[in-house]
């Protein structure tokens, strides 16, 4: 709990919702007749609506990106180190919008919300959404907020894929795209990791083909396993060595199958924490959106042609020890943008934290993000600040 709200925090924030009654045509062919989006905003939208920045969240993220909901909160939002007054995404200059994506489990319509057609919880019947569906729904939220053009759309990992999709799908509705630790599509290895995670959930006897709510259970063991696997792919070998080494919980070997090494209890803790806050059907759905993402597929699998549609400027960042979304994957995006003659800047940031690095306040990373966001502010006529 923060005794006092730090000066560079956006402070106490309030969640907002909007109910959309116009049906949304989905990539899968299905239609969402109506839906709710839960979002937060930080900073003030200026008179000409030119200072809006959209934050797109990753696999397990949500709309609560910065600040606190109440004074008793243990932690601020998931990207609080980057969003706030004087921070790289400076809320003195920008009006920041962060939402929970469709299919999520933090307030936007998803498997845990009620199906208006049946009056019962969607569960596994919530349609599988694709990244482009998210972007379409985000565009409708922009309409509601009076934002015609984003000064920038920013996201890491799965969030970076949404940024790419924005730049292709609505080229005129964003001036800058910040794509962090992302990829133009998943590799077979990445899809394989997702499938192992999904199988862990699906094979949990408490999963009941996704209808666990009706049985009054949750597939906790499956979710834990999925998260443990995910978590270790987000860390690097070095980071794990430094953090845990071979340290033992009780200082000695017990010759039992209970967790003995610190790294084991850490993974258990992470899995446990996740399994109590996250919905299994949402996890299944989000990993599918990751697997399906391949914007070049619509352009004869030619990424250069695909990114040739874009009209914004790009900042692409990667991290040296990220093997889940390796620097080479970011470089594919950069090379395609260069071949398409599009404005792009790129750096691969030194870090031993693996994929997780994109959420950490690494000095060099934040300096670059800040330098770029200053440019975004200048370009949109908001360079003066307050």
């Amino acid at each position, binding site marked *: 709990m923060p005794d006092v709200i730090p000066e560079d925090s956006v402070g106490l924030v309030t969640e907002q919702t909007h109910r959309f009654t116009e049906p949304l045509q989905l990539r899968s062919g299905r239609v969402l007749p109506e839906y709710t989006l839960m979002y937060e905003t930080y900073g003030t939208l200026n008179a000409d609506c030119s200072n809006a920045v959209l934050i797109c969240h990753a696999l397990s993220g949500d709309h609560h990106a910065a600040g606190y909901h109440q004074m008793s909160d243990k932690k601020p939002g998931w990207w609080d180190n980057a969003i706030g007054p004087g921070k790289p995404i400076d809320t003195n200059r920008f009006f920041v919008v962060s939402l929970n994506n469709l299919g999520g489990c933090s307030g936007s319509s998803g498997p845990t919300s009620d199906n208006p057609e049946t009056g019962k919880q969607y569960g596994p019947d919530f349609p599988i959404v694709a990244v482009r569906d998210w972007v379409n729904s985000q565009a409708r939220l922009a309409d509601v907020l009076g934002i015609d053009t984003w000064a920038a759309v920013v996201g890491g990992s799965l969030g970076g894929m949404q940024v790419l999709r924005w730049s292709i799908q609505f080229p005129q509705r964003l001036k800058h795209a910040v794509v962090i630790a992302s990829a133009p599509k998943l590799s077979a290895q990445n899809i394989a990791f997702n499938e192992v995670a999904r199988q862990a959930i699906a094979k949990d006897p408490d999963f009941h083909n996704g209808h666990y709510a009706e049985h009054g259970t949750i597939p906790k063991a499956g979710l834990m396993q999925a998260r443990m696997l995910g978590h270790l792919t987000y860390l690097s070998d070095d980071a794990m060595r430094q953090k845990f080494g071979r340290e033992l919980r009780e200082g000695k070997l017990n010759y039992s199958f209970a967790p003995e090494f610190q790294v084991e209890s850490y993974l258990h803790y992470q899995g446990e924490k996740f399994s109590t806050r996250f919905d299994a059907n949402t996890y299944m759905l989000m990993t599918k959106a990751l697997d399906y993402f391949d914007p070049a597929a619509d352009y004869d699998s030619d990424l250069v042609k695909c990114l040739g549609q874009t009209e914004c*400027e790009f*900042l692409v960042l990667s991290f040296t020890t990220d093997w889940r979304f390796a620097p080479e994957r970011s*470089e594919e995006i*950069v*090379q395609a943008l*260069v*071949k398409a*003659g599009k*404005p*792009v*800047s*790129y*750096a*691969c*940031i*030194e870090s031993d934290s693996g994929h997780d690095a994109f959420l950490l306040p690494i000095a*060099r990373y934040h*300096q*670059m993000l800040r*330098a*770029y966001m*200053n*440019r975004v502010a*200048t370009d949109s006529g908001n360079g003066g600040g307050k």
Partner: protein
Amino acid sequence: MTPLQLDDLRADLAIIQRWIEPGSQVLDLGCGEGMLLRYLREHKQVRGYGLEINQERITTAIAQGVNVIEQDLNKGLVNYNDGSFDTVVMAQAIQAVQRPDQLLDEMLRVGQEAIITFPNFGYWRTRVYLALKGEMPMSETLPHSWYNTPNIHLCTVTDFEKLCADKNIRILNKTVLDDSHQEHWAIRLWPALLGEMAIYHLTRRPL
């Protein structure tokens, strides 16, 4: 940002910009803080990218509004298409790469023209330093000791012109600057001796 003035540019960059056509596409190898590209954008509507390896400089270049890409020049320019730039610039960096000859080929594959600047090792002070002291020359332009210098392939103006001749590379323009970074009549007579910094404008295009 108030636009850069010519005085804000390093002496070699101030000369280079004269040789770049308005509205052209430029690739700047080892672009540093992106001063040249920013100047060219502000005054000549030039579009392009800078390649740089130092992240502090990359951050500054980003802040200057320059498109800068982290890339190690020793790995070549494989990710750039043939003839995709009007001019490829490399200022004060060729002496620091592993294979200057190969990079020169790469520059003229990717660009129609290339502009290169480097410290002339045949400069008279350098010659005197080596002759009299018997030690690897050090100066303001060459401030490092032999064992820690990034300048692993120093050459003279004569060496460089020989390489260009061997490779059938045509010299469109050249100039040398003295140690106060001025061009004057005496250096034009004896550039190989009096020039401290050499600047070459090259192409493979036939006459």
